[in-house]
């Protein structure tokens, strides 16, 4: 069979890409010749995969992630690997070891993170679709900041095989695009069981988005419109929810008491898992080589000092501490209890309503360097992390502007009702297209 390929030569003024595949081969299928950008923490055979870290510079995976295999099977062309916060740790893509990505809506502002490169590539029109990953909001945040659509699927609906792990119990690969239909199309390719991922479910996605939402019951959590949220952003999102009501949906106020400690539970869990996941980067089997003339621990420490950015080292230390003898009960064990409470809160609310709506992010995209204090950076994840803790699906769809910058409406749903979440976003999108 003759090799077919597309030529991909984007004008990447926003530094969305770390690797560009100028001649991208492709086959046939639902996505024939569609150029798709893949976040650089997803393994691509023969294409350098760095997680935007120095510690994986030069690493060429000998295998494809399952999602990538499925993309290729659908005829897609892998256009390149996109920039991100190092190992997924960040909310702005400023933590990339290879320089930040700029927000196409305003290059003085961050594109969001950690899938900032994928969001910028889509927002700037360089590609039609992209794969991102979402551990605590890393698809939804950049989608909101860049004014595109991004879906975090139900946990376990998309295989994580080949996704370089940051926090195994929280993350998912998900689709990002400029239209809900494209997000839905991409989801139909990547969702489904993979026997190589023991946490994956046999729940393929074959849905065509429907704009019919009459009778839909929407929960409005007070915590999503409270003190930490910019009133202008809250206002735009309330208007968008009003639009949904005009389409026949009804709203109901609700409470998520566990929101109080959800962020703490998230950061304890993800840093703990990360501290373990990132311990394998020792320069022996891959990555810049360890100095074999030194004794093991010295060489190992040197590789990590040189290869990991500051935020990575901070999170590894936090996670090491949270798991350490004497502290496991106070931190990690407690975080799992907290997490289960979050899941129960959402399950309880979603017994009475079909979806939950609120802003994706508490503010519009920050300026570069605005969030210099780590804790204040973590706090901006407050509206996205509960979804990951509960394992439920959530989408961000653009719903207006504040100070010229996009604002995202977040729709959250029951486990395995990604279809309903997409329909809600689709209904809104079609209504305002007019």
């Amino acid at each position, binding site marked *: 069979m003759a090799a077919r390929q597309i030529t991909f030569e984007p004008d990447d003024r926003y530094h969305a890409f770390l690797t560009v595949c100028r001649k991208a081969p492709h086959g046939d299928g639902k996505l024939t010749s569609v150029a798709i950008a893949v976040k650089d923490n997803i393994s691509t055979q023969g294409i350098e995969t760095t997680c935007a870290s120095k510690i994986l510079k030069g690493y060429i995976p000998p295998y494809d992630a399952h999602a990538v295999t499925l993309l290729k099977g659908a005829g897609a062309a892998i256009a390149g690997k996109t920039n991100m916060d190092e190992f997924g740790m960040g909310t702005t893509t400023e933590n990339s070891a290879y320089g930040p990505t700029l927000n196409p809506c305003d290059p003085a502002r961050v594109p969001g993170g950690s899938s900032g490169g994928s969001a910028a590539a889509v927002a700037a029109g360089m590609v039609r679709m992209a794969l991102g990953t979402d551990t605590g909001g890393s698809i939804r945040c950049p989608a909101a900041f860049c004014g595109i659509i991004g879906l975090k699927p139900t946990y376990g609906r998309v295989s994580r095989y080949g996704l370089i792990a940051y926090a195994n119990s929280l993350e998912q690969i998900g689709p990002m695009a400029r239209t809900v239909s494209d997000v839905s199309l991409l989801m139909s390719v990547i969702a489904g069981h993979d026997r190589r991922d023991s946490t994956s479910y046999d729940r393929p996605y074959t849905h065509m988005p429907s704009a019919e939402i009459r009778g839909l019951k929407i929960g409005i959590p007070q915590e999503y419109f409270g003190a930490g949220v910019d009133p202008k952003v809250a206002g735009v999102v309330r208007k968008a929810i009003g639009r949904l009501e005009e389409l026949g949906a009804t709203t109901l106020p609700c409470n998520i008491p566990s929101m109080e400690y959800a962020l703490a539970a998230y950061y304890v869990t993800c840093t703990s898992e990360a501290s373990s996941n990132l311990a394998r980067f020792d320069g022996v089997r891959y990555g810049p*080589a360890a100095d074999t003339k030194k004794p093991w621990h010295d060489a190992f420490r040197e590789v990590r000092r040189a290869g990991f950015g500051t935020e990575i080292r901070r999170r590894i230390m936090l996670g090491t501490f949270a798991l350490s003898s004497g502290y496991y009960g106070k931190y990690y064990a407690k975080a799992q209890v907290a997490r289960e409470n979050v899941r129960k809160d959402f399950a309880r609310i979603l017994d009475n309503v079909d979806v939950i709506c609120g802003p994706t992010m508490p503010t519009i995209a920050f300026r570069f360097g605005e969030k210099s204090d780590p804790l204040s950076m973590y706090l901006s994840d407050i509206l996205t992390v509960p979804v990951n803790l509960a394992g439920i699906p959530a989408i961000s769809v653009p719903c207006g502007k504040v100070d010229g910058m996009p604002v995202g409406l977040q729709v959250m749903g029951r486990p395995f009702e990604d279809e309903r979440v997409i329909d809600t976003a689709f209904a809104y999108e079609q209504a305002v297209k007019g």
Partner: protein
Amino acid sequence: MVTEKDVVHIADLADIGIDAAELGTFTGQFNAILEYFDILDRVHGDGTIVRDLHNVMREDEAEPSLPQEEVLANAGADEDGFIKAPRVM
């Protein structure tokens, strides 16, 4: 409250390499974050995680391994088919 000494100990445990210059800032930030985590002390519940998936297993069948060259391809150094590493003795 963790002290700089505690932070050095954690960095040792994690073999993470932290400079003396960074130590002060790190410790301050660490403490702020840990203080935020203290909210978890107020959490109640028995924490049994409901897992609906269990006994996920595969059959005992041998599948092809990677060719030796591919195993060594990303390694920093190799010798006679082995991967070279810093000494552990």
